[in-house]
């Protein structure tokens, strides 16, 4: 256990690309309610460009809700969220602008089952970025190659395995050439045999310097690529630290309990 931590840190230190000083996402005093229920409480977080954040915590802790606020799939009621210098408000233009810069992958992939893999990837570039079809297809093939799945381009999502579908979902998000990628439990719905292929793709993305916020329980992934690990519970950030310290020496009782439950 202790050894593997050291190994991971050496590996990641060598691989981790430079983090810039510019801010990608800034969340200031953000709170959110579902009706009477206070689902997020006073969230404060600053993410620099190129930084990779892993967010973990028990179910219902608000971790998914938090990252879904960043691209306005959920609305926050208090505080500020600033993405690439634009503050999220009800202004539809600003929401569009931010969604163009922020890619997202979901637990259940959310590919469009009536479109081929290629069409899934070209849709947003063509309709949102107004890219010509041929150019969009070249771009899509480029990213499908990058997730190592170009031979499936003409198939439909239903014909692919879960792992392949999630890699397509990553490629689809990348086709919008986002500056930030959000991952909402990308491996939780996968068969055990397929987790690795998706994680490898995400590691590749991290090594290329993408700004990433990942909600995941893959602690190996957190050790390998994360700059910071955030532990959330009951709608608030309980602890945040760089991965080695986070895993080796958790401070808060709740964090210790959680880690003891998942790292058997």
């Amino acid at each position, binding site marked *: 256990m202790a050894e593997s931590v050291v190994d991971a840190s050496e590996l990641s230190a060598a691989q981790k690309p430079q983090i810039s000083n510019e801010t990608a996402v800034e969340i200031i005093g953000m709170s959110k309610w579902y009706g009477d229920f206070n689902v997020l409480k006073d969230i404060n977080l600053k993410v620099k460009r190129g930084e990779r954040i892993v967010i973990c915590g028990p179910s219902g802790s608000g971790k998914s809700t938090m990252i879904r606020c960043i691209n306005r*799939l959920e609305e926050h009621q208090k505080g500020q969220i600033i993405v690439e210098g634009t503050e999220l408000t009800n202004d539809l233009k600003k929401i569009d602008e931010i969604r163009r810069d922020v890619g997202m992958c*979901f637990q*259940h992939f*959310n590919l*469009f089952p009536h479109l081929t893999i290629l069409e899934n990837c070209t849709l947003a570039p063509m309709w*949102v970025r107004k890219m010509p079809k041929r150019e969009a297809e070249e771009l899509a093939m480029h990213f499908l190659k990058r997730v190592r799945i170009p031979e499936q381009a003409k198939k439909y999502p*239903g014909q692919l395995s879960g792992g392949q579908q999630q890699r397509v979902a990553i490629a689809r998000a990348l086709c*919008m050439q986002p500056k930030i990628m959000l991952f909402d439990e990308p491996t939780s719905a996968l068969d055990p045999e397929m987790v690795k292929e998706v994680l490898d793709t995400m590691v590749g993305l991290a090594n290329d310097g993408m700004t990433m916020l990942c909600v995941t329980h893959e602690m190996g992934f957190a050790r390998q690529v994360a700059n910071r690990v955030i532990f959330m519970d009951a709608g608030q950030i309980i602890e945040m630290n760089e991965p080695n310290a986070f895993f080796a020496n958790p401070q808060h009782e709740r964090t210790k309990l959680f880690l003891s439950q998942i790292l058997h």
Partner: protein
Amino acid sequence: MSDVAIGHGQPFVRKEILQPEPPPASLVGFSGWARQNLFVGPANTLLSLFCLALATYVAWIMLDFLVLRAVWTGANREACIGPEVGACWPFITTRFGQMLYGFYPAEEHWRPATVFFVAVALIAPLLTPSAPYKKANALLFFVAFPIFAFVMLSGGFFGLRPVETRAWGGLLVTLVVATTGIVASLPLGVLLALGRRSKLPVVRFFAIAFIEFWRGVPLITVLFFATYMLPLFLPSGWSIDGLLRALVGVSLFSAAYMAEVVRGGLQAIPKGQYEGAMAMGLRYWPMMILIVLPQALKLVIPGIVNTFIGLFKDTTLVAIISIFDFLGIIRSAFADPNWATPGTVYTGFAFAGIVYFIFCYGMSRYSRFVEERLDVGHKH
């Protein structure tokens, strides 16, 4: 080569990976199929035999009346009188023109005939997936064709003699009402369904009020109101063509039903599809048109075609406002003393039944074809 039976406490390692074998004979061929589907156990076998007997009996009765005992030629009722006479086909053939066009002037029959053939020439490639130029084809059918049909049928332009809609009838009216209703009700229904699920309270309220109003009244009432009461509410000197009023009534009526069918489809689309689309920056209309509606409409093709078929048959209700559609013309022909025989009514209704069945079964088969074509073997 099979391994030894695996017993308790014995470790087991497979030495050879098994290859698939062909299924046993009891699973393949017609006899295999029949054994598995028709003759499974005594109750199933009995039911199969009973249904087979019933089907044979009904088929025999129809064949006997429509073909074997039928009269094929004749000039008037004399030909069809007799105790053993079945269907009286000359009654149909002598009145065939009227059944197609109603009281449309005989020397102008070429006009509806032309419209009909142009319609077929445009619809057939539109419904054939492999036919090219879909966009131009759709544009021609949905935009140019209605204008062409209106000019040809009503006349009054280009030296064509005006023919009042009161003179239209027969299959012509049935097809005009049904096609207009079908083409108008689907887009209207989609808009109403989207409206009913809108986040804007005013839009939602309007959609709900519209749908519930039109679903809450019988079509006969709608047609009756449109024909006899609407003129009372219009300023004097205003008049709207009777057939047009029926067309609008039928379209709005079926749009309300269509809206509920489409809403069923929209509700079946998982939230993740909306989120996937929104996360990529698609706004409301592109999201609906590119992602949600194609999936929702595909799911409810059976319901949509069900509504179309219902609409097609409901067109017979225009009889209530003195429009002689296909069935209306046939019924009016029963009063003709030249053809008053015991078999006339049966022949007329049998013929009407056959024609309506051909159209409705055609729609039904086409919907199956589309469903199979769009099935790309997926789950969400």
